[in-house]
């Protein structure tokens, strides 16, 4: 019960919140194992409200697994175990009794491959709203227009809302998925390589969109594109495999990571982007 409350209160910061210094997301010693295999160890990370944080690093070092902890998509994987301390605005995200449905409405997720439902554009957007209990049609239509405008899709699709979402281009589909996630006014938006299945122009559109979303929500983006990380992110965390276990080797502002890395690994990894 307390957890239910905690999550419901997430979007309203507590009155006595001591300023922006307190991170929205706070990870301390987070580890993830699939069965007996530990893939992520001892991850500590602070994410400030309203920031864009890029998670970078080679394949298989646990970036997706970490994102999965933040909205508990890891619950879908049998035998997946998460330990450590992970908090969202003070609420314990690893509490097994946490209301994950409420959590996922506050923490949206954008997948690598655009995944619109094979329904009409309108139905794609109507569904989450109806699920969230918006019964009347007019507020739903208004929210749909607002979010389609936010992702710059309104002018492109307003006259064919009843057409199949699958008929949109890849970039449009991805923006539709972002709009769909925005409908519930999430506090955090997780994006797992959101541009990697898109052509460069669609990718640039989505990238520009990320900049404009900053005011509405905190963004955590996984990307393999270092140039992209530099363009969109405020802060960066480099994940790396150590003894077969993923962990963060360095984190900091984009400037620090790309121009004044402390770790040899970071220096070598970002050289591709800087050189």
């Amino acid at each position, binding site marked *: 019960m307390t957890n239910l409350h905690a999550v419901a209160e997430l979007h309203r910061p507590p009155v006595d919140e001591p300023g922006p210094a307190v991170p929205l997301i706070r990870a301390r010693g987070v580890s993830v194992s699939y069965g007996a295999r530990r893939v992520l160890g001892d991850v500590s990370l602070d994410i400030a409200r309203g920031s864009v944080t890029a998670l970078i690093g080679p394949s298989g070092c646990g970036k997706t697994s970490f994102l999965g902890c933040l909205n508990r998509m890891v619950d*879908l994987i049998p035998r997946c175990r998460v330990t450590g301390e992970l908090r969202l605005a003070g609420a314990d995200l690893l509490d097994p009794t946490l209301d994950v449905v409420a959590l996922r409405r506050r923490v949206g997720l954008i997948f690598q491959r655009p995944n619109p439902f094979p329904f009409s554009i309108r139905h794609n957007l109507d569904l989450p709203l109806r699920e969230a209990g918006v019964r009347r049609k007019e507020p739903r239509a208004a929210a749909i227009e607002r979010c389609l405008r936010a992702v710059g899709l309104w002018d492109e699709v307003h006259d064919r809302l009843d057409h*199949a979402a699958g008929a949109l281009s890849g970039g449009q589909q991805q923006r539709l998925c972002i709009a769909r996630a925005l409908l519930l006014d999430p506090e955090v938006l997780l994006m797992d390589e959101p541009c990697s299945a898109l052509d460069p122009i669609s990718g640039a559109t989505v990238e520009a969109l990320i900049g404009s979303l900053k005011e509405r929500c905190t963004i955590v983006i996984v990307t393999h594109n270092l140039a992209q990380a530099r363009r969109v992110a405020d802060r960066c965390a480099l994940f790396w495999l150590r003894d077969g276990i993923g962990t963060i080797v360095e984190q900091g502002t984009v400037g620090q990571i790309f121009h004044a890395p402390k770790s040899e690994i970071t220096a070598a990894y970002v050289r591709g982007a800087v050189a």
Partner: protein
Amino acid sequence: MSIDALRRRRTARVVDAAVWGVPAITVAALAWLLADVVWHGAGQIDLAFLTTAPRSAGRAGGIAPMLVSTAIVVAIAVAVALPLAVGTAVLLVEVLPPSASAGRWIRRSLDILAGMPSIVFGLFGNLVFCTMLGMGFSLLSGGLTLACMVLPILMRAAEESLRGVPDGCRRGALALGMPRHRAITAVILPCGMPGIIDGLTLGVGRAMAETAALVFTSGYVDRMPSALTDSGRTLAVHVFDLSMNVTGGDRWAYATALVLIGLLLVTAGLLSLASRFLQRKGAHKP
């Protein structure tokens, strides 16, 4: 031109002939069958044939009671088997982990059921529904027996089509904060609906055309049924009876068969329309 090239060309011709020949034979067989039935049966069919009861064992009068019995028996079968099939498919695909041995056993049993001769279903239905459960020879017994028979068909179709739903949709729905059961009813089932309807078409076709499973369960009585507990004769059983047991019944058997085929085509058409309608509503990619 080299010998090789000639030989290649000859091979190509043989392949061409095979590629076009096989479907041509299939279509020709179907056309012949239909032509035969139409030729012998069309003359008997008029409005009275469809709306009156048979007289003198089917050599006169019509087939109205059989139409009604067929509709009732098939409706019972679908009403019982479809929810069971979809429910089991949801259990297998969405609820149980893929490794669960329950799933393997359910699937194996259904495969065996699917291969069972229909006469066995007839004997089983007679024993269980007519005798043990005391339903006697009745439309209810017949419908339930047919339900057992089409269950594996519907089940398989539902399972395949749910498995075909992209994982992105499933995870997408959950990531949007839909509770599991809503993700299933609002996203996954609608995504799989066209496949389920295809299976339904197959199952209904099989049920409408069935005789052996019904002779021992819903029976022969050719009166208009007035309750589910009445015995009733379906179109297919009527065709069988006319051609095997009634001298001079052949023309009427053909006429009834023609109606049955027409009904099958109409049902398939309607179901495909329904599927198309769902797709146009956006339930599936064009």
